[in-house]
């Protein structure tokens, strides 16, 4: 062991040989690993870190003490930290940064990393690690976090030489934020952050094995333009890639000019304003009737930054059976993974869309629009109302009204998520934040916290369920401590609502392990116990008052316990195994 420690010391810059080297390059600095980390992060423009300290990262936390450049948010659980960083990234477009200790600190980040990975969210996660000479010894708080997170990270590093630290951090940010974004993990053994090494300030990142394609193939774009120009029933299907690729303006101007209808995925909500006449809203399992019918009937389909997820396609052999398909995606592996595509275009949507716009002539879509408009007027989304109690759909529309559609809506997972996706009017990008791919319950509240930190000028509404909110409720402490004014609206039905809905529809109403009501806390008292504001509504009038009050509070989190109809179901719904046009529009008795 002693031997290895000497080895480490030799590799660091504490010996004469390397000091001579450093002297030869006066622009370089000798710093210890923690200083290199903080300096590189600052140089990369990072201003916010979500983290939780512990033994292996003590030297780093010492450098964060009273550091004016880096705002460290002390979360109450590392899972909350990764979700918060993820929410911050989705709300701002900047990578989210997480710092946790070794062992349990790292393993607690796993759900958050997996959530970010499947939705392609740029995160850089720093985990502490036991000292190099102890790795593999089953040391205290040791876990092979690089191994554990390998399938859920875009890339990962174990830093073995403090002189590589700066470059590794720069490369990690480059990989996390370019191409198809994703989480990158850097494991930092304790001796690496304590020993001294070079800081060069050299911003160049060059990795020969990593060269994401950005520009689409010209002849493919011409083929796509030709298909679209001659389409009778074209449809644009836009996904989260439009938001990640910052291409919402390009998409909007293109779709408006050629007057082609646009449906968005759950992840794509907000990339095309729902106030425009071309918008068909969301498609898929809980999508609108007209979006799903348009998908089934269209003759040319332009998929933009979307990946034909099973929640979108329904049964694949019934998915858009008559269309010729064009697919723009930065990740070739997303193309033709689930659905065969005729014209694949690998490239950055922000580059490809304007080119496509250049070459596409406005198709004649008058008849198509007649059909679409008829579908829209005959089959609108249902939003029932009741006098004496609150319908969950009403709750979403009331939030949409009170925020005038200008809020950042962050949801958890379940019925409320689908209603929030359907019924809130999204007119701006980065306004709907939700765990789409992994469907992580417990994501919503901490992600809203991160979104609020990144977006101090917009109201941030966390719409959650009574189940999901309790999974990460402890972050109320973080919000109170940092005066983060997240408005948490709990759609409280005392059930795990979506699971109950499936049990009602597919398991003969055998409500197995979904009733939460008798164990639910008094959310108002609970909020007050944390020092947050707690409010409750059980009637539509109370709900309006509560929402108004919440809008006026901007220095603390507000928890709104909104008690809704217990057994309302979320429709339309495409049952598992059905095609999109086989959706169920409502309860049979309705």
């Amino acid at each position, binding site marked *: 062991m002693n031997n290895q420690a000497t080895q480490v010391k030799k590799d660091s810059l504490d010996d004469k040989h390397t000091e001579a080297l450093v002297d030869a390059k006066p622009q370089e600095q000798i710093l210890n690993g923690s200083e290199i980390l903080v300096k590189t992060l600052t140089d990369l423009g990072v201003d916010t870190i979500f983290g939780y300290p512990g033994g292996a990262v003590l030297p780093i936390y010492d450098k964060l003490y009273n550091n004016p450049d880096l705002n460290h948010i002390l979360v109450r659980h590392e899972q909350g930290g990764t979700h918060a960083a993820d929410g911050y990234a989705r709300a701002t477009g900047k990578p989210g940064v997480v710092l946790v200790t070794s062992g349990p600190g790292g393993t607690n980040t796993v759900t958050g990393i997996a959530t970010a990975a499947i939705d392609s969210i740029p995160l850089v996660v720093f985990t502490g690690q036991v000292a190099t000479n102890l790795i593999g010894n089953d040391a205290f708080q040791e876990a092979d976090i690089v191994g554990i997170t390998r*399938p859920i990270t875009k890339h*990962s590093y174990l830093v073995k030489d403090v002189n590589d630290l700066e470059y590794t951090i720069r490369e990690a940010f480059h990989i996390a934020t370019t191409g198809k974004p994703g989480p990158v993990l850097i494991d930092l053994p304790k001796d690496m952050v304590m020993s001294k090494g070079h800081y060069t300030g050299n911003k160049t990142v060059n990795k020969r094995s990593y060269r994401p394609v950005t520009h689409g193939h010209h002849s493919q774009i011409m083929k796509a333009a030709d298909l679209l120009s001659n389409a009778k029933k074209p449809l644009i299907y836009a996904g989260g890639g439009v938001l990640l690729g910052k291409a919402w303006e390009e998409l909007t101007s293109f779709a408006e000019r050629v007057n082609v209808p646009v449906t968005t995925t759950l992840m794509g909500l907000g990339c095309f304003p729902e106030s425009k006449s071309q918008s068909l809203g969301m498609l898929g399992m809980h999508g609108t009737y007209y979006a799903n019918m348009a998908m089934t009937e269209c003759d040319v389909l332009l998929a933009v930054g979307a990946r034909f997820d099973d929640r979108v396609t329904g049964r694949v052999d019934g998915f858009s059976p008559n269309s010729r398909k064009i697919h723009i995606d930065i990740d070739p592996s997303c193309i033709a993974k689930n659905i065969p595509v005729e014209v694949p275009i690998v490239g950055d949507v922000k580059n490809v869309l304007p080119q496509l716009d250049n070459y596409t002539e406005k198709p004649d879509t008058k008849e198509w629009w007649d059909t679409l408009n008829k579908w829209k007027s005959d089959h609108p989304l249902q939003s029932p109302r009741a006098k004496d109690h609150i319908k969950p759909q009403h709750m979403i529309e009331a939030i949409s009204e009170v925020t005038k559609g200008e809020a950042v809506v962050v949801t958890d997972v379940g019925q409320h998520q689908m209603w929030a996706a359907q019924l809130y009017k999204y007119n701006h990008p980065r306004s709907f934040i939700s765990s789409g791919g992994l469907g992580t319950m417990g994501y919503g509240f901490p992600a809203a916290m991160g979104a609020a930190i990144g977006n101090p000028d917009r109201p941030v509404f966390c719409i959650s369920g009574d189940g999901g909110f309790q999974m990460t409720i402890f972050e109320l402490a973080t919000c109170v401590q940092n005066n983060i004014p997240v408005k948490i609206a709990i759609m409280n039905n005392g059930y795990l609502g979506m699971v109950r809905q499936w049990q009602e529809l597919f398991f003969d109403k055998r409500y197995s392990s979904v009733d939460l009501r008798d164990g639910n806390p008094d959310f108002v008292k609970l909020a007050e116990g944390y020092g947050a504001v707690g409010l409750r509504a059980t009637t539509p009038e109370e709900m309006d008052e509560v929402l108004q009050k919440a809008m006026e509070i901007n220095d603390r989190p507000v928890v709104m316990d909104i008690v809704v109809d217990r057994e309302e179901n979320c429709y339309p719904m495409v049952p598992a195994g059905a095609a999109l046009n086989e959706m169920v529009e409502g309860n049979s008795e309705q």
Partner: protein
Amino acid sequence: MSSNPQIEMNHTDMGTKSKHTISVLVDHNLNALSRILGMFNGRGFDIDTISFGEGQQPGLARITITTHGDSQIVEQIIKQLHNVIDVIKVRDLSFEPFVERELALIKVSAHPSRRSEIMQIVNVFRAKIIDMSPDKLTIEVTGNNDKITAALGMLRQFGLVEVARTGTVALRREFTGDT
């Protein structure tokens, strides 16, 4: 819906499974190899054989993977390999002329009375006997995967004691004869 020609065509295409030999150039580190193995395992792809070793350039390794699947699966394998950050180059050799070899060490029970019979088989397969004991022989066979499987099939009757196979290694053929 099922009458759509495009979809039907793809269904028939999906029925044909074939063998593929994929050559992957990567940064020489175990994280890269683990990522590749994990990708195959996690996405439900098969590996028939895999070999890993240093390439011609320092710091790089060449991984040779033989796998099987329909064209859609193999296309996904290639694309997912490209997505591994440390992967520099991926080549599906099956679409071009290539040379491949595998080496196997086969230990068989060999009672002195049957040695000459075994040696005949060894000769036919151009194999070598590289170790011998009073009742066992160790044989080295080199060739493509099929040849080794065939040699093993012939030697099985004597009683296989132990077998070690390297997995296929392959390189693209430079000159095919037609200029």
